[in-house]
């Protein structure tokens, strides 16, 4: 299934190049999501199905949703409406659609050839990854949890809006 690997690699590189050359952040996000999905196909083909699933769920799912929310927060008003109208014209959505269709064709092809093994002889499943993760790398898991907690606290602190002075003075005096 080397052909799947090469096709997914070509899609990933093309989507990344197109992402870098977009002017609107939303268009670039579409291409970035396609690029991450293509890398997920590469992972699956390399015998890492667990990592492929995590790439789709966390990278293309959670992290990209954060990006989409921030871009939506930043592009309020009339420019955003104009960008939305431009987004609905065919030149804007045809690129990501074609690349995503290639990935869908690969997916269907993989399902049709269900018994075809991946490129490698033996794929490394989630069991081995979990055993290694919670065995040798347990201290790394603890450090990652501390890092995530620090990120959560920092994001909450940075996103916290101070109470405006006008509102604060409206406290009724006794």
């Amino acid at each position, binding site marked *: 299934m080397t052909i799947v690997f090469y096709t997914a690699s070509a899609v990933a590189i093309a989507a990344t190049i197109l992402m870098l050359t977009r002017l609107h952040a939303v268009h670039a996000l579409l291409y970035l999501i396609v690029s991450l999905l293509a890398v997920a196909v590469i992972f699956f083909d390399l015998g890492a199905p667990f990592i492929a699933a995590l790439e789709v769920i*966390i*990278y293309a799912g959670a992290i990209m949703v954060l990006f989409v929310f921030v871009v939506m927060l930043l592009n309020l008003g009339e420019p955003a409406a104009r960008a939305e109208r431009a987004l609905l014209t065919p030149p804007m959505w045809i690129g990501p659609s074609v690349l995503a269709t290639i990935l869908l064709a690969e997916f269907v092809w993989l399902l049709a050839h269900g018994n075809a093994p991946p490129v490698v002889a033996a794929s490394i499943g989630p069991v081995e990854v979990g055993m290694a993760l919670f065995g040798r*790398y347990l201290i790394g898991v603890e450090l*990652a949890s501390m890092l995530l907690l620090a*990120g*959560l606290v920092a*994001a909450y602190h940075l996103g916290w809006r101070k109470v405006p002075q006008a509102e604060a003075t409206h406290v009724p005096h006794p």
Partner: protein
Amino acid sequence: MFPIREGLVVSGILFTLGLIGVLVRRNLVFVLMSIEVMLNAAGLAFVVAGTRWRQPDGQVVFLFILAMAAAEVSVGLALVLELYHQHKSLDTDAISRMRG
């Protein structure tokens, strides 16, 4: 035949593209997206190497990269929002002089 060399080449190309994005683009959101591309390329290299030696360690390191990317992007996007509220701009040149 396992395409380890091709996998590493793809990883290198993606990393270089992300680096070009960080150096060329002037929009902070694009810079953050390019950093994501670079982190993803590094993870791809780890998974390719782990598959080459039939060890799960490469995938474990990819999980750590994933957690790090999630923390980085949450803090980075919060900073982007804060900078946009203060400067009304996402241009890295416009906010190059930080006066505290």
